[in-house]
C-alpha cells in the first residue's frame, strides 16, 4: 500500500554525511565525575531547583520541579552530591550562562526505585501529570513539554505523526534509535495514541534511511503506517512533514493541533516508553557525535554530561578541527564553551574542520535572483524580508510575513551572493520581539501613571472637601458660640491649635503610603524578607550598642 504524498515547495539537497556516524551501534558512556544539569532545558518557564548544596541525590530523583503550566521537571542523571547551584555555561547561541545544578557523582549510580505505570488503566490527566513529572519534552529540538502536547484539549486529534525524517545533514541519532530500539519506540507510540485518542498513526521516515524504515516496518502493528518520504531538507520540519504526509497546511501562527494533527519526534516516543513503562524519568538521550572526530557515532548520553566529555568519549577531535556545532549544520549553533552540558534539546555535536565547513565567502549585495524564494519551504520572499531587515525597517519586513519563517536556512544555503539571510531574519525577529516587550511595558507604565495621576487628583479633591467641611463647621460653631464665649483670646488660641492639628493630620496623611495594599504575593514576600533582614541588622546593632 502506498500512500499519496504531497510535495511542499522549495527545499534543498545538502550532502547528507549520514554514513559518517550511522554505521556503528549506539554506545554507552562511562560515568563522569561531574554533571551539570541546567534548569531551563525546555520551552517555557525554567524548572525550580528543589535541592540545596550538599544534598545527596539518587539517579532519577527530581531536582527541579515544573514551574507554571508550560514547564517540566528536571532529574538527577546519577547518584551523588549537589555541589553547586549557580549560573553555568549552557548550550545556547549566546554563550551566556544560565542556572544549573551541578552534581558530583559518587560512582555508585544508585537509582531511585522506578515504578512502571499501568498507563492503559490510568486517567489521561493522571498520565499527563506523571509525564510532566518525568520531565518529558520534545527531543527533536523544540523541547516543548510533552504532557501539553499529549493533551488533546478542545481539539479532536485524528492523526498522530511520528517524525523520523531526520532531514538535517550529519545527524543520525533517530536513525540508530529506530534501527536498534524499534519495538520500544512503538510501545511509546502506543502511549501517545492512548493519551490523544487518535485513530491514524503515520510514521514518516526519509528514504535515505532504508534500515530504519525496515526496522520500523517490522516493529509496528497493523494499525500504524510507516511511510517513506523523499529526502529533501527541511522535510523533517513539523509543518513540512505534516504537509508531506497529509496535504494539510498548518495555519500560520497556529499549531498542527488546530487541524487535528499532532507531531512527535522518535526520540520522544522512546523516552516516553522508558518513563511510562519502566518508570525512569528523562535522564538520558541519544546524541550524535560526528564530523572531524576520531570515532564518530551515536552515544547514549546522560543529560548534564559536559560536551567536552562527550567529545572525549568519541575519541576527541582530530587535529585541524575548527570548532563545534551543536545541532545540525543547517539550524544548529556554534558551541561557545565546551563545558556546556548535553540538554534535552541537544541531538548532535559536529566537529568542524575547514574542509568540511569552509568559511563562508564574503557577503555581496542581493541581486534579487529569487533563488531563496524558490528554496523557501514556507513560500516566503526572503529577499524582500532581507532587504527591509537589513535596513532595519522592521514594519515592512514583518509585512512580508517574517514570522512565518522557520529559520531552516535554505535561503542562506542557496544564496549566490552568500548573504546570511537567516541571521538577518533572526536579528529582525529579536528586534521586533524586543519592541513588543517594550510596547507592553510602556502600556503598563501608561496605565499605572494614569492611575497615579487620577489617584492624586482624587485625594486632592477629597482633602479639599474635608477642609471645606471643617471650615464650615468651625464657622458654624463660631457663629453659634459668639454670643456665649466672651474671651476672644481663648478663641484665638483654640483656632491656632486647630490649625496646627490640621497641619499635622495633613502631613501624616501625606506620608502614609497609598500603594501597599493589593500587592502581588511575590512582592509582599520580598518586602517581608527584606524587613526581616533589616530588623535583624537593626537588632544586631542595637544589641551591640547595649554591650558597649
Amino acid at each position, binding site marked *: 500500500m502506498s500512500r499519496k504524498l504531497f510535495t511542499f515547495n522549495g527545499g534543498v539537497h545538502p550532502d547528507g554525511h549520514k554514513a559518517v556516524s550511522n554505521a556503528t551501534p549506539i554506545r554507552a558512556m562511562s560515568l563522569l565525575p561531574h554533571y551539570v544539569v541546567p534548569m531551563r532545558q525546555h520551552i517555557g518557564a525554567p524548572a525550580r531547583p528543589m535541592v540545596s548544596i550538599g544534598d545527596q541525590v539518587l539517579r532519577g530523583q527530581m531536582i527541579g520541579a515544573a514551574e507554571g503550566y508550560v514547564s517540566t521537571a528536571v532529574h538527577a542523571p546519577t547518584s551523588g552530591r549537589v555541589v553547586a547551584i549557580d549560573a553555568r555555561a549552557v548550550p545556547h547561541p549566546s554563550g551566556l550562562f544560565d542556572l544549573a545544578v551541578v552534581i558530583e557523582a559518587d560512582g555508585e549510580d544508585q537509582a531511585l526505585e522506578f515504578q512502571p505505570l499501568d498507563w492503559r488503566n490510568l486517567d489521561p490527566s493522571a498520565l499527563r501529570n506523571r509525564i510532566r513529572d518525568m520531565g518529558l519534552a520534545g527531543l527533536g529540538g523544540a523541547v516543548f513539554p510533552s504532557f501539553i502536547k499529549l493533551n488533546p484539549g478542545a481539539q479532536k486529534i485524528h492523526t498522530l505523526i511520528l517524525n523520523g525524517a531526520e532531514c538535517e545533514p550529519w545527524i543520525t541519532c533517530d536513525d540508530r534509535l529506530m534501527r536498534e530500539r524499534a519495538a520500544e519506540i512503538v510501545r511509546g507510540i502506543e502511549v501517545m495514541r492512548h493519551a490523544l485518542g487518535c485513530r491514524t498513526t503515520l510514521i514518516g521516515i526519509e528514504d535515505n534511511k532504508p534500515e530504519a524504515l525496515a526496522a520500523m516496518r517490522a516493529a509496528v502493528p497493523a494499525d500504524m503506517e510507516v511511510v517513506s518520504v523523499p529526502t529533501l531538507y527541511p522535510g523533517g520540519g513539523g509543518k513540512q512533514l505534516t504537509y508531506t504526509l497529509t496535504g494539510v497546511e498548518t495555519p500560520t501562527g497556529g499549531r498542527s493541533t488546530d487541524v487535528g494533527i499532532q507531531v512527535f519526534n522518535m526520540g520522544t516516543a522512546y523516552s516516553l516508553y522508558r518513563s511510562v513503562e519502566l518508570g525512569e524519568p528523562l535522564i538520558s538521550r541519544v546524541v550524535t557525535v560526528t564530523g572531524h572526530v576520531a570515532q564518530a557515532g551515536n552515544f547514549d548520553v546522560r543529560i548534564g554530561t559536559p560536551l567536552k566529555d562527550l567529545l572525549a568519549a568519541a575519541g576527541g577531535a582530530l587535529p585541524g578541527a575548527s570548532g563545534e556545532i551543536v545541532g545540525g549544520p543547517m539550524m544548529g549553533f556554534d558551541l561557545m564553551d565546551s563545558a556546556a552540558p548535553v540538554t534535552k534539546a541537544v541531538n548532535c555535536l559536529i566537529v568542524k574542520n575547514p574542509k568540511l565547513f569552509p568559511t563562508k565567502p564574503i557577503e*555581496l549585495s542581493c541581486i534579487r535572483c529569487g533563488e531563496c524564494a524558490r528554496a523557501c519551504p514556507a513560500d516566503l520572499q526572503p529577499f524582500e524580508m532581507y532587504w527591509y531587515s537589513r535596513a532595519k525597517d522592521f514594519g515592512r519586513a514583518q509585512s*512580508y510575513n517574517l514570522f512565518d519563517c522557520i529559520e531552516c536556512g535554505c535561503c542562506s544555503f542557496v544564496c549566490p551572493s552568500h548573504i546570511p539571510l537567516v541571521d538577518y531574519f*533572526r536579528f529582525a525577529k529579536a528586534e521586533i520581539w524586543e519592541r513588543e516587550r517594550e510596547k507592553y511595558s510602556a502600556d503598563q507604565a501608561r496605565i499605572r501613571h494614569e492611575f497615579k495621576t487620577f489617584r492624586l487628583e482624587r485625594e486632592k479633591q477629597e482633602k479639599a472637601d474635608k477642609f471645606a467641611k471643617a471650615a464650615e463647621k468651625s464657622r458654624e460653631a463660631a457663629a453659634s458660640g459668639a454670643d456665649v464665649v466672651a474671651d476672644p483670646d481663648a478663641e484665638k488660641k483654640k483656632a491656632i491649635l486647630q490649625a496646627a492639628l490640621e497641619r499635622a493630620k495633613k502631613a501624616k496623611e501625606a506620608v502614609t503610603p497609598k500603594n501597599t495594599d493589593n500587592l502581588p504575593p511575590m512582592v509582599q514576600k520580598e518586602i517581608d524578607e527584606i524587613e526581616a533582614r533589616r530588623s535583624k541588622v537593626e537588632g544586631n546593632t542595637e544589641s551591640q550598642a547595649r554591650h558597649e
Partner: protein
Amino acid sequence: MIGSPYIFGRNSTSLVMLKVMLALIPGIAAHAWFFGPGIWVSLLLCSAFALGFETLILLLRGLPLKPFLSDNSALLTAWLLALSLPTLAPWWLYAVGMLFAIVVAKQLYGGIGQNLFNPAMVGYAALIVSFPVYMTQWPAPIALADHALTIVDAFDVVFAGQGAISPDAYTSATVLDTWKTQVRLGTPVETILAQPMFGWAGGLAGRLGGQEIVALMYFVGGLALLSIRLITWHIPLAFLIGVAATAGVLHLIDPTQHASPLLHLLSGGVMLGAFFIATDPVSAASTPRGKLIYAVMAGFLVAIIRAFGSYPDGVAFAVLLMNMCVPFIDHFTQPRVFGHTRTAAKDAK
C-alpha cells in the same frame, strides 16, 4: 557574528553573471558573421569603460575593488549595452552610454543589486534621446555593404571618425527603421519586404540579412539559460507573447501599416530583451505572477512603441517603463505563504 547554516551551495553571483555572458556568445558570433567585426570593437570598448567607471566609483566610495569588480555584473551590463548599440559608432558614444549605465543607473543607487532601472537600458535610452542620428547608423550586412570593413578599419572608424571611408559605404538603416520610413512614405508592403535585408533571403552564406539569425542565436542562448534554470520561463515567454499578440492584432487590423508578428519577434532587440534584458533579476518583477504581468506589459509596450512611437525600437523604453512599475507590481502580487489562507491574509490586514 554569523550563525547557521554552516554549509552553503556552490552558486555565486559572479558565476551567474558569467553564465549569462556565455549564453550571449552564439548571438555575438552570429552578429560578427553578418555585420562585420565592428561588434568586437564595441564590446571591448564598452567593457573597458564599464570597468573603468566601476573602479572609479568604487574608489570614490572607499569600497574594496576585488569582490565588486570580479562579480562580472559590470561586464554583463557592458555587453548588453554593446549589443544594443550600433557598432562602428564613435568611441565617445560608448563612453557616454556606459557612464549613464554604470554611474547613474547603477552606482548612484548603491551598486549591484540596488538599482531600480536596468543599467544597460538606461544607457541606451539616454543615448537614443540625446544622439538619435548616431543611433540609427547601423552597419550594413556584409554582403550589402559597399565596403566590407576589417577589424583594423573598425578601430579606425570608431576612434578617428569616418576617416577615408564614407559611412554610407558601410551603414544602412535597420529592418525596423526601414519598415517605419517606407510605410510612412506609402511604399507597398510587398516592395518593402522584397528588399534583401528582409526575410530569410540573406541566408547564412550570403550574409545579406542576418538579423533573424542573430535573434535566433539569442533565442538559443536564452534556452540554454532556461535549461540550467538560471532564469525562469515566466518573463521570456510572457514577453514574447506580449509582443507577438499585440503585433498580431495590429497586423490583422491593418497589414499595410503593421508588420507581421514574426518580423517583430525576429528583429530589433526583442529576443535579446526577452531572454537577457527583461530577465535582469535586479530590475525585473520577482514574484511569479508579477513576472507575468511585468513581461506581458513590456512586450505590449514594445509593439505599441514600434507601431506608433517615434523610435524604431521600443525594447529599452518598454523595459524601463516596466522597471518603474516593478515595486508596485511586486507589492500587489505577493504569493500565498505556507499556512495562510487567502481570507485569513485579508483579515490580518
